[in-house]
C-alpha cells in the first residue's frame, strides 16, 4: 500500500514538453482514474510512476520515498499494459510466474499463488495454454493475474479494457471495482472513456494537454466542474455551452436540466426551437433542439416528441453555469454573475 506524489514533474520528449511542472498526490488505497482526451499525457504519467520513462525533472515519490533512482522492478508497482504485453513464448502459468521467479519466491509458494490467483480471475483451465490460443478477454485476465500475483503496493492500468467488447467491458469494470475492494491497494487507472472513469473512480484526475483540469470525486466533477473543459468532457451528451455575447463569457447547462414542453413554460431561461434529431436510447431520449441562436442537446426520460416538432426549452436558473473568458467557472457569488444571468435571460424568448 502506498501513496504516490508528483512534485514539479516535467517530462519532455526531445524538444516537445508533454507535461510541465505537474503536482499531484494520489492517495493511498484509492481507486484513482486518470482521464483525458487522446494524447494528453496519461500514459506518460503512468510510465513515470512505473519508472519505464523517467521524468525529465522533478521528483516522483512512492510512499514518501523518491523513487527516481529505483529500477522499475524494485518499485513495488505492477502494470497492466494497454496491449497486455503478455510474453507470447510462455504459457499462461509461466507468464504469471515470471515475476515471482525473478523475485526468488520458492516453488511451493509460487504454485500456490498461481493456483489461487488464476482461480480468482477464472483462468484455472487455461494455465498450460499459450497466449495465442486465448481470447481477448482471457488475455486481459492473464495480464491482470500477472500483475496481481506480485502483490504490488501500486496497481497501474493503462486502458486495460479498451480492446474488449462492450459487454465484457462492463463486466470487467465491475470485477475491477470488486478487486480493488478486496485488495485495498492503490489503483491508478488510465482511460480516455469518461463513462469508465465516472463508474469506477474514487477520485478522477482529469487532464488536458498535460495539465490537470480538475481532481475530485466523480460526483463533484459532474456537479461542480471547475472549468469549461471539465464541463464539456464529462456527461453523455456533454454540457450544453454557448457564448453569452459579452466579455467572451459562456453559459451552460446539463442536457437533463432542461425541460421540453409544447406550450410556453414559465422557466427562467427559455427558447423556442425545432427538434432536428432524436436519439432513442431506451430509458431516455436525446433531442437536438435548434433555433437561430442556440443548438442544444436535451435529455428526456419520456419519449414524447418527434422530429420537426416545435417545442419550448426551459432551464431553471439554479441549473445554469457561467464560465469566464479564461474558461474558468464563475461562481454565483462573483460580482459578474448577476449581470451575466440577466443578460442571458434577455436572450431567451419571452
Amino acid at each position, binding site marked *: 500500500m502506498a501513496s504516490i506524489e508528483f512534485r514539479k514533474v516535467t517530462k519532455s520528449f526531445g524538444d516537445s514538453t508533454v507535461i510541465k511542472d505537474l503536482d499531484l498526490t494520489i492517495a493511498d488505497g484509492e481507486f484513482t482514474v486518470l482521464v483525458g482526451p487522446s494524447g494528453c499525457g496519461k500514459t506518460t504519467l503512468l510510465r513515470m510512476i*512505473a*519508472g*519505464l520513462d523517467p521524468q525529465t525533472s522533478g521528483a516522483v515519490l512512492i510512499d514518501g520515498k523518491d523513487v527516481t533512482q529505483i*529500477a*522499475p*522492478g*524494485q518499485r513495488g*508497482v*505492477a*502494470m497492466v*499494459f494497454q*496491449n497486455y*504485453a*503478455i*510474453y*507470447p*513464448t*510462455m504459457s499462461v502459468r509461466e507468464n504469471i510466474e*515470471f*515475476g515471482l521467479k*525473478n*523475485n526468488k519466491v520458492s516453488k511451493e509458494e509460487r504454485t500456490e499463488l498461481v493456483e489461487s490467483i488464476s482461480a480468482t480471475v477464472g483462468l484455472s483451465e487455461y494455465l498450460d495454454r499459450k497466449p*495465442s490460443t486465448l481470447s481477448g478477454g482471457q488475455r486481459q485476465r492473464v495480464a491482470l493475474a*500477472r500483475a496481481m500475483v*506480485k502483490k504490488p503496493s501500486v496497481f497501474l492500468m493503462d486502458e486495460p479494457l479498451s480492446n474488449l467488447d462492450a459487454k465484457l467491458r462492463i463486466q470487467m469494470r465491475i470485477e475491477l471495482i470488486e478487486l480493488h475492494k478486496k485488495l485495498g491497494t492503490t489503483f491508478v487507472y488510465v482511460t480516455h472513456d469518461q463513462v469508465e472513469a465516472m463508474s469506477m473512480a474514487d477520485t478522477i484526475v482529469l487532464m488536458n494537454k498535460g495539465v490537470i483540469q480538475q481532481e475530485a470525486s466523480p460526483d463533484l466533477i459532474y456537479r461542480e466542474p471547475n472549468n469549461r473543459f471539465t464541463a464539456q468532457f464529462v456527461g453523455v451528451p456533454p454540457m450544453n455551452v454557448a457564448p453569452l455575447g459579452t466579455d467572451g463569457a459562456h453559459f451552460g447547462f446539463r442536457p437533463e436540466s432542461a425541460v421540453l414542453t409544447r406550450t410556453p413554460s414559465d422557466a427562467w431561461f427559455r427558447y423556442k426551437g425545432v427538434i432536428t434529431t432524436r436519439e432513442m436510447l431506451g430509458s431516455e431520449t436525446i433531442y437536438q433542439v435548434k433555433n437561430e441562436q442556440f443548438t442544444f442537446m436535451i435529455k428526456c426520460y419520456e419519449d414524447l416528441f418527434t422530429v420537426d416538432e416545435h417545442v419550448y426549452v426551459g432551464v431553471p436558473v439554479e441549473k445554469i453555469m457561467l464560465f469566464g473568458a479564461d474558461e474558468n467557472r464563475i461562481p454565483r457569488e462573483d460580482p459578474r454573475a448577476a449581470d451575466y444571468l440577466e443578460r442571458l435571460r434577455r436572450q431567451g424568448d419571452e
Partner: protein
Amino acid sequence: MNNTTRWDTLRPYVMILPAMLAILCFVIYPVFYLLKLSFYRYNLLNKAKSKFIGLDNYKQLFSKDEFYVALNNTLIYTVTVVLLTIVIALLLALLINRKKTRFNAFLQAGIFTPHIISIVSIALVWMLLMEPNFGILNYVLKTFGLPTSKWLQSSSTSMLSVILVSVWHNVGYYALILLAALQSVPPTIYEAAALDNASRFKTFYKITLPMISPQLFFVLIIMTIGSFKVFDTVRIMTGGGPNNSTSTLVYHIYEYRSNNLGYASATGIILMVIIAILTFVYFRVLANKVHYQ
C-alpha cells in the same frame, strides 16, 4: 453440374501443373540422373562404354581415406562456421539494436558490405592479407608483438583461415536477419519484464531468444546446409591443401569430376543424404523449441 464439380477437383492440379513441370525437369530429374550416374562407371569420352557397376562406387568411397578426411574437414568447417557466425551475428545484432545512433547505422551498412562482394574477390584479397611474409595480418600481429601465423600455408592453420574468411563474408548478412527479428519484438514486452524484475540475462534468455527463435532456426538450417556445401573459398584459396587439410566433400567431388564421374556422383548423393538427415534431426530436436507467432 457434374462438369463443374469435376472441374472443381481438377482445377488445383491444372493450376500447379506448370510449376510441377518445371520442378520435374529441373529438380527431380537431375537428382535421379545423379543417382543413376552414381551406379555407373561413366566414360565421358565414349558414352557407350559406360558400365553399370551397382554399388561399387559407394564401396570405393567408403574405403577411401580421402573421403573420410574430406568428411571430417567438412564437419569441422560446418560446426565452427555455424557456431561462430551465429554467435557473432547475434552479438552484432544486439549491439546495433541497443541504440539508434549514427555509428550503429554506419556499422549496419558496414557489416553488410562483404556480402555484396563476390566471394572470389574476397578470397583473393584475403589470400594477399594472409600472405605469411608480406601480408598485412602478420604485419599487424608483429607490430603488436604477437606470434605470427603461416595461415593458408600450414596444414594446421589452413582450415582456420578458410573458416575466418567465410565467417567474415557471412556474418553481416545474418546479423541483419537477426537484427530485423530483434526489432520486431514489441518493446512493451521488455517493459513488462523490467517490471517483473527480470535481470538482463534472464530477459535475454527467457524473452529475446524465444522471440527470435524462428529466425535463429532458419539461420541455423540455411547455414548448416550452405557450410556443408562449401567449395569456392577452398577452390580459390587452398585447392584442398596443404596436404588435404582443407579438402571438403564438395571439393572432393570436384576433384573427381572428369576422371571418375560415377564416383563423384556417389559422393554427391552421400552429401545430399547427410544434409537431409541433419535437417531432419534439426527439425526433430529443435522444432518444438521454436516459437512461431
